[in-house]
């Protein structure tokens, strides 16, 4: 399995940042315009990046449309979607409760969709098979990325880590199988508990899964801790479980040269990073070893 050594993320556009409110506001205003978002992507592509991670948030469809509209310019790119957009479901559950939220998502597909037919056929939400339900939700999210070259479909950490605590193999097995079969892509799991998740995947016999996790010098968002991460990475088989590092700068706590010097020493197959200025993008690409020339 090969995945891009460098993947360009989306946190710079939509991420919740820890900086001042003024800066956050300035950024939100700037990236409310799709042209400004695309300009940043163009800088990244100019710097040699060919892999893009994009969360299925409410802006994602518009962005993908722009990429699809210019195949000669963007057709070579490889995509790394992350699903779902957790905030969408959180507010739905807030508004309507768990069952109401599921119903709303299913009905949103319209009467002619697979859901519509099932619901018309008298199937109640309460008796839906969970695996079937999961597949439908995945398919709905993946609609955003149609006709793009999808390499890995990542499941967000809020879902992965929640399910990890339940200690049940079945949803993980079902997700991975669905992504492979339906999308011909590699399943990916984002986690803040890399050692625990990897141990469980081995126990459950699930292989060929990309694991994306925060990996940084100071151990920020790395449970149980940085030593355990380093030990696990040292013994990890990057063929069976390719590792994609995120949060390498630890929300800006580690300067880029120091951060990537650390990452370059580790058995990490890929790095996802976000930046919005041409200078920062170029700097990151040049600091990550094994990067495209």
């Amino acid at each position, binding site marked *: 399995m090969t995945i891009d050594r460098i993947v360009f993320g989306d946190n710079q556009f939509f991420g919740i940042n820890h900086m001042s409110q003024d800066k956050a506001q300035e950024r939100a205003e700037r990236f409310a315009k799709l042209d400004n978002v695309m300009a940043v992507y163009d800088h990244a592509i100019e710097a040699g990046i060919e892999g893009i991670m994009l969360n299925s948030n409410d802006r994602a469809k518009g962005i993908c449309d722009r990429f699809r509209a210019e195949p000669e310019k963007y057709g070579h790119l490889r995509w790394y979607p992350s699903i779902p957009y957790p905030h969408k479901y959180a507010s739905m559950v807030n508004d309507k*409760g768990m069952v109401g939220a599921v119903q709303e998502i299913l009905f949103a597909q319209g009467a002619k969709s697979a859901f519509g037919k099932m619901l018309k056929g008298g199937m109640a939400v*309460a008796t839906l098979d969970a695996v079937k339900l999961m597949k439908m939700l995945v398919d709905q999210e993946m609609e955003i990325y149609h006709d793009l070259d999808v390499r890995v479909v990542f499941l967000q950490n809020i879902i992965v880590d*929640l399910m990890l*605590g339940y200690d049940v193999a079945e949803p993980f097995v079902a997700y991975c199988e669905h992504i492979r079969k339906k999308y011909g892509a590699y399943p990916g799991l984002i986690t*803040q508990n890399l050692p625990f998740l990897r141990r469980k995947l081995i126990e459950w016999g699930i292989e060929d899964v990309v694991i994306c996790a925060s990996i940084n010098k100071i151990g920020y*968002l790395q*449970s149980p801790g940085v030593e355990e991460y380093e030990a696990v990475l040292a013994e990890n088989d990057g063929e069976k479980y390719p590792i994609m590092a995120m949060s390498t700068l630890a929300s800006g*706590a580690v300067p880029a040269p120091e951060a990537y010097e650390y990452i370059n020493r580790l058995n990490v197959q890929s790095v996802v990073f976000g930046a919005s200025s041409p200078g920062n993008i170029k700097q990151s690409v040049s600091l990550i070893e094994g990067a495209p020339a």
Partner: protein
Amino acid sequence: MTTDLKLGIIGAGRMGITHFSIANAHDHAEVTGVADPSKLVTTMMGKYTGVGTYKDYKGLLKGEELDAVLVCTPPAHNPEILDAVLERRLHAFVEKPFMLKSSDGERFAAGFDAAGLVNQVGYVNRWNDMFTKAKAFVDEGLIGEPLRFRSEMFSGTIVRDVGEAGWRATHANGGGAVYEMASHAIDLIAYFFGAPDSVGGTTLSKVYSKQVEDIVASNLFYDHGLTGSIYVNWSDASFRKPTNKFEVFGKKGKIQVDQHGMKIFLAEANEAHGFKQGWNQLYITDVFSSVPFYVRGIEYTAQLFDFVASIREGKPVRCTFADATADLRVMEQLFADDAARAAGDAA
């Protein structure tokens, strides 16, 4: 205690399923039963996790041999549930705001304490690394005697017209910005300084809700002279995630803190902490603690693992039923003060 704790979850909504995952990941705890009225939820939980599932707390308490329960139901249900839990002599973790009436809170605080049962309420900000650090600074006198504080909380939870359905629509069920959000802002004040003695100039305003308030504003007074204000707005769409902002002003400086960072202004440098005169900035990456398992944030794991440690090892409880009851008294004062002002206006 050498055997693993057996836990039951009552109410498998957003908080219930989160606590289930975290508690289950503890080396010495295991979730064995879940009660929830939703058949969708219990069917999936039963099928995939193998826990015992029940449509309500009565079935759970009868069907499982438990050491403790995590109560994550709408607060109007909690008195009835906790009566049964106390009768069964089980330790209890209860989601905030715990109860709707302080008189109920007092009864259960006294009952659980007398029975020697660990009792904890899920005011999770007391486990946030930024807030615990800020409290430590205030307690050690970094900014001198606290004179004035401001506790604010914002979110875009209710940003369109909402119907009258659901438990959130009325005070009787525990809906409204006072119970659901101002409770956090009040508890943060109580965590720093204890509960205030009185309130004044309260306004509870509606933006979208029909029967409950969306904005809470008030002033809080302590008999020893400390004063502060609270401002909570859950209809502010400029905030994507719920955010607490807390500021304390003292004679020697001030601290402004939220979940992710802290600004400290000092009249004089503090060498022990390496703080200079003027502005100092701390980020969460400077002070974070680590937890064995992470789901929604470090503080969620820390509070639940503390609950387990309190049962197993007698670790002191950071937010007891009595603490949450003191917060409820403040909420009752806010309702009364707003009602009195509205009555005065009408006259």
